[in-house]
């Protein structure tokens, strides 16, 4: 037994409730497909584990994330199902509810978003609903936590009294006979599965691939089951006009749901989504929708850099290079630290980690805006507006969701691709996500653009993001022409009603994303900084007198000649790029350590001597495009389940980065830029 599980349609607030019930901070948003894998947490009152599952409309999965939920039911056999139902969309939500009631385990219905339903003028008779479905119903507002206490106490009650559902639908003589026949076959083979044979039989009649695969029946049994199904369909066709058993079963269920809803839901005061309609008049306008989106992006960059991010970053820099460094220096002198320790801490750790941490304000502002897009409902509108463009290059409008998440971090972005139905479009999206300029690349831009393009920082940085997007489109077209055969594609997206993100949720999501950056600062960037500093300190002949004789110089030197045509053929650039594979912020750490400067102003001066503006732009473009970082490579391997695609992703990006940087530098020189 694996405790209770939250299950329900996409975007009904399962994860919001999960966070309340288990005091966790899992990722929430206002679109379908936020949660793509199962999450397990401990209930607040320590009464057992709770599993959060990706949203599904029915048990028959169409995409990778939905498969997770369906397989969970067959293999993990939870002792209690908590079915979260969107009160404002009762009819469509009850379809899954029926399949869950047939599953045979106790079901509690969490009737969520009763506030939304009320605002839309819908009144739901919960007592009647509970009586018809023979199950407990708890009204909830998951976003604010209303009803979560009642739900918890209801969950604890299930242990005392038997809540096994006694809800059954009679599907007609033909189907009932087939259910009996299949149950018999399944029972003879699986004696200890603990699953309801009736439920299994119905899932088999509906051709649910996730259930069939998880059961792993023998070929002999399968062929007898196939015969039962064919026979049932033949008999059914004599009486009814139906194309498949699946359609027929669906129609029986739909009829019952409509009958229940007709009495349970009072729609007499129904109102349209006034606010959503109003916002969509602008945000999803046929002509102005795209310009508004682009203007919003430009605003994002202005806020992240010029208006808010840079001033805050300067303050932080002044603190780290001023009071903090002085304090640490004094402390080190007071305890009589050796010259080695002193240099390691001041030049290595404070230089390397501090040099990246000063860009925290820009990163957090970017995360805040991304969280706002995720939580407001705007995300789904962007996918609609961009679908045509995406279709032309062989992608799907839904790819925009991973791409936008990718501006924060590529790792969750690769995972978010799971909600794309077609395997080809999903793989293609995952391969291209690394071209989205993640927040780890932001310190590199902030540093270089701040030195060379101080007057138009936001524009220069925006140009890099746009470069990533344009190259994504070009490569998507090329890859879908030459690498993939299957061209079947469709697009369907649900547009959730807009809602004002709650301040608490917004800051929490920003913090959860930002924590990843801070954690990286404490692990990869710290470790990398120490390693890099040691490599600059030591050389083939012991302690290096000059940094040019150090190990790092010889490692970086290997690549210097290769990078010459790109405009930055120095061992310093080579070394920074090699170490940047660990995490792209490390590029900045390495520069800080190499140029051995106490603060940003000093580093800026050093870099302005080492690079020209053209070389700097070429370098930024190279950092944008060259190889996904270590963590992204890891998640690509896991999600594509193929080394071939993973290596391809690394390979194509290296070739692309090199080509683009050569074009920028040589082309720039040719037209007379410096």
């Amino acid at each position, binding site marked *: 037994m694996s405790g209770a599980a939250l299950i329900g349609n996409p975007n009904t607030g399962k994860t919001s409730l999960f966070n309340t019930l288990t005091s966790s901070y899992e990722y929430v948003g206002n679109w379908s497909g936020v949660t793509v894998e199962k999450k397990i947490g401990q209930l607040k009152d320590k009464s057992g584990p709770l599993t959060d599952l990706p949203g599904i*409309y*029915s048990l*028959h999965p*169409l995409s990778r994330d939905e498969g997770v939920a369906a397989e969970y039911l067959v293999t993990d056999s939870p002792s209690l199902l908590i079915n979260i139902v969107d009160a*404002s*969309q009762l*009819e*469509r939500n009850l*379809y899954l509810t029926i399949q869950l009631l047939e599953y045979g385990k106790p079901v509690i219905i969490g009737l969520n978003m009763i506030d939304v339903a009320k605002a*839309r003028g819908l009144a739901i008779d919960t007592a009647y609903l509970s009586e018809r479905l023979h199950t407990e119903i708890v009204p909830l507002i998951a976003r604010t936590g209303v009803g979560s206490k009642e739900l918890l106490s209801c969950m604890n009650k299930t242990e005392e009294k038997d809540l096994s559902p006694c809800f059954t639908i009679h599907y007609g003589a033909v189907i009932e006979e087939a259910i009996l026949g299949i149950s018999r076959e399944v029972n003879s083979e699986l004696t200890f599965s603990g699953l309801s044979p009736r439920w299994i039989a119905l899932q088999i009649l509906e051709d649910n691939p996730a259930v069939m695969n998880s059961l792993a029946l023998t070929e002999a049994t399968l062929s007898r089951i196939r015969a039962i199904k064919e026979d049932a369909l033949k008999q059914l066709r004599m009486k009814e006009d139906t194309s498949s058993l699946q359609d027929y079963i*669906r129609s029986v269920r*739909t009829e019952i749901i409509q009958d229940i809803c007709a009495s349970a839901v009072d729609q007499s005061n*129904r109102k349209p*989504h006034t606010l*959503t309609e109003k916002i*969509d008049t602008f945000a*999803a*306008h*046929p*002509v102005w*929708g*795209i310009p508004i989106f682009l203007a919003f992006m430009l605003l994002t960059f202005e806020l992240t850099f010029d208006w808010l991010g840079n001033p805050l970053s300067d303050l932080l820099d002044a603190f780290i290079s001023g009071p903090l460094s002085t304090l640490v220096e004094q402390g080190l002198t007071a305890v009589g630290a050796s010259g080695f320790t002193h240099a390691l801490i001041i030049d290595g750790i404070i230089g390397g980690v501090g040099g990246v941490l000063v860009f925290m304000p820009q990163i957090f502002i970017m995360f805040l805006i991304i969280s706002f897009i995720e939580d407001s409902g705007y995300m*789904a509108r962007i*996918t*609609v*507006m961009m*679908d*045509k463009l995406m*279709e032309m290059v062989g992608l799907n*409008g839904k790819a925009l969701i991973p791409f936008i998440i990718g501006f924060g971090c590529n790792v969750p972005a690769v995972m978010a691709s799971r909600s794309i*139905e077609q395997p080809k479009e999903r793989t293609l999206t995952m391969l291209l996500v690394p071209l989205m300029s993640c927040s780890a690349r932001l310190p590199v831009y902030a540093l270089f653009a701040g030195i060379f393009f101080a007057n138009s920082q936001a524009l220069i940085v925006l140009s890099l993001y746009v470069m990533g997007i344009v190259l994504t489109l070009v490569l998507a077209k090329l890859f879908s022409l030459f690498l993939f055969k299957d061209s*079947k594609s*469709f*697009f*369907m*997206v*649900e*547009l*959730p*009603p807009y809602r004002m993100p709650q301040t608490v949720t917004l800051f929490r999501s920003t913090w959860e994303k930002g924590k990843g950056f801070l954690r990286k600062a404490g692990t990869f960037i710290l470790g990398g900084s120490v390693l890099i500093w040691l490599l600059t300190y030591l050389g083939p002949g012991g302690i290096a007198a000059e940094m040019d004789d150090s190990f790092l110089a010889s490692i970086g030197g290997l690549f210097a000649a290769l990078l010459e045509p790109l405009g930055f053929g120095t061992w310093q650039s080579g070394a920074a790029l090699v170490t940047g594979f660990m995490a792209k912020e490390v590029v900045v750490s390495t520069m800080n350590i190499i140029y051995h400067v106490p603060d940003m102003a000093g580093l800026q001066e050093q870099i302005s001597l080492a690079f020209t503006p053209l070389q700097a732009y070429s370098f930024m473009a190279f950092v944008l495009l060259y190889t996904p970082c270590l963590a992204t490579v890891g998640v690509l391997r896991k999600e594509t389940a193929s080394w071939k695609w993973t290596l391809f992703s690394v390979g194509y990006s290296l070739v692309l980065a090199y080509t683009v940087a050569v074009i920028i530098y040589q082309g720039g020189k040719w037209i007379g830029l410096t």
Partner: protein
Amino acid sequence: MIPCQSCLTSLQPGNSGSICRFGNIDPILKRRLADLGVAEGSNITVKRCCLWGGPILLECDGQLLGIRQKEAAKIEVSVS
């Protein structure tokens, strides 16, 4: 606009009709639509079309959704 006699794309934004037949659309899309309660007999409203042949926005029983025009052209509706 993809021309058709009595399909979804022939409806002006703001108008609605009842779905009478799904033509030759992708079975997975048909399932997805059924999941959202869009099936034969459902009443559906065209909200707006996107520029340059982009997706068409629909509403069915309070649920907003978007699908491509070429698929919408295969869904036949009757206006009462």
